[in-house]
């Protein structure tokens, strides 16, 4: 038996503050894919919403907090990327790339 495969997936709507456009929700799914099992669902009325699956590593109550935290962390990472010294970043990337076959 593969436990992960045999547990049926139940998807539950997840409240997300602010913009709920399909594009933003898709971004959230990508940002949180490592910690939560999320998808963007479109309802009959044409509205989009974020759904979390019961196989997620966190319970349903904690999922919203995790999404908010992940979004806040993404902003911090964007700040680091914009402020960090580019020469050092390029040096690291060069040394890494040089390790390939020449």
């Amino acid at each position, binding site marked *: 038996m593969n436990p992960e495969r045999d547990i049926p997936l139940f998807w539950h709507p997840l409240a997300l503050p602010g913009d709920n456009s399909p594009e933003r929700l898709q971004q959230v799914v990508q940002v949180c*894919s490592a910690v939560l099992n999320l998808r963007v669902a479109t309802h009959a009325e044409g509205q989009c919403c974020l759904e979390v699956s019961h196989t997620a590593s966190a319970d349903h109550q904690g999922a919203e907090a995790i999404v908010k935290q992940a979004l806040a962390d993404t902003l911090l990472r964007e700040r*680091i990327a914009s402020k*960090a*010294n580019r020469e*050092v970043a390029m*040096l690291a*990337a060069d040394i*890494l790339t040089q390790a*390939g*076959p020449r």
Partner: protein
Amino acid sequence: MAIKHQLYPFQFHRLNRAEVVAVSVTGDYTYLTQDNLNRLIEAPDELPMEVLAEMHAKYFLGREGNHGSRRLLASRLVTKQETVTGGPTLHILVPTLQCAHTCRYCQVSRSLQDTGFSMTPAQVDAACDTIFESPSNTLTVEFQGGDPLLRYDLIQRAIERIARRNAVEKRSIRFVVASTLHQLSPEMCAYFKAHNVYLSTSIDGPAELHNLNRPLASRDAYERTVEGIELARECIGKDAVSALMTTTRASLAMPEAIVDEYIKLGFNEIFIRPLSPYGFAARNEQKQTYSLGEFSTFYQRALQRVLYWNKRQQPIREAAAAIALNKILSPFDAGYVDLQSPTGAGLAVLVYNYDGYVYPSDEARMLAEMGDTSLRLGMIGKPLIDLHQSPVMHALVNASLPTRTPGCLDCAFSRYCGPDPVGAYRQFRTMTPPVQQTKHCQQQTWLFDYLFRALQDADEAFLAMAHRWARSDLKEEAA
């Protein structure tokens, strides 16, 4: 004059709402509160003095115009990459696919026939010559199978050809034979002792588990392997044999018994590994696989048992933790090929298979056994430079650079890890799926998270042990 701090690139991994572990470009790490993380990014001057000093020492911050520090940083980065830049160090020869076992999870597949399932002598010779095309001064030549002892003649042929050539080349060469040891004889032991050959075998745990996993018609796989271990130790030396275990579903219930078995058999290292879904393991996937959650529970219990024995002056090292701790705690990389970036597959390891082809890794040749030969680098006998210039090799490298892999760009553990393009290809039939969905990423992310939490809460005894385990030569004794 006030010092102008420069923020260097770094990543962080959240431990809880108030704390993260941050990893710098050199792989140095630190635990930061949310407040200090914000200060580091926005206003380093406001960091407490000791935190500020630590941030400079660990390359989270630099000083404008400090070129000496920048050179040191470059040196640290290059040192970490040495195992990949030095050329292939691990050369695996698969002289035969023959094996008497019918293991239900065999990752390789096997055949009882010799015809068509063994290397020709000419292929053995050509593989040995290619090994010396590697620029690396330190080489490991490992014989795998099947059970390579079933073609002992080909092992001897390879060892003697390499030894003759090395009389001139003067490389540091280590031989390893990975075998059930069922065919091992005193004559073989004498030969192996004379040629500095180490033996590697499989012990899955206590006899009932081992025999369940590795069925023989005679139902005595465990007893025969233990006989082989004793013979090797008696004839070659007490450190002549190391052992590996594979975790099956049946293993999950008995982590303590498995560790105790290694203690009983006198091993000072155990490698708690999940099942690799290749070969027969893939065909039996429904019956054999388990979730990461189940494996992590098993792993934690096994590691606790390892720590239990260490506290009782019975030194034993868990290799998966040791490899990760080496990445975290040591400036020198031990060169474990599965956690290299770019990938160790092909760059650090080459597999010369019985079918006449060279593969970039053991897993790639396992895929070939499953009918997918698309990861072949070329035929045995092709110059190393051509193998390395092959389209497959370029695809592997391009798919294993964290700087080009979206999921790795934001990962704090990318300094210690790298995408596994062969595993990704097996799982998704593409080398570049969303990396967080790969088993490799999920497994390694869990392990690094677990170890960083353990290090944060560690007492002095655990920290001392972690540093011993982290030494780059994982073959050193565990004490």
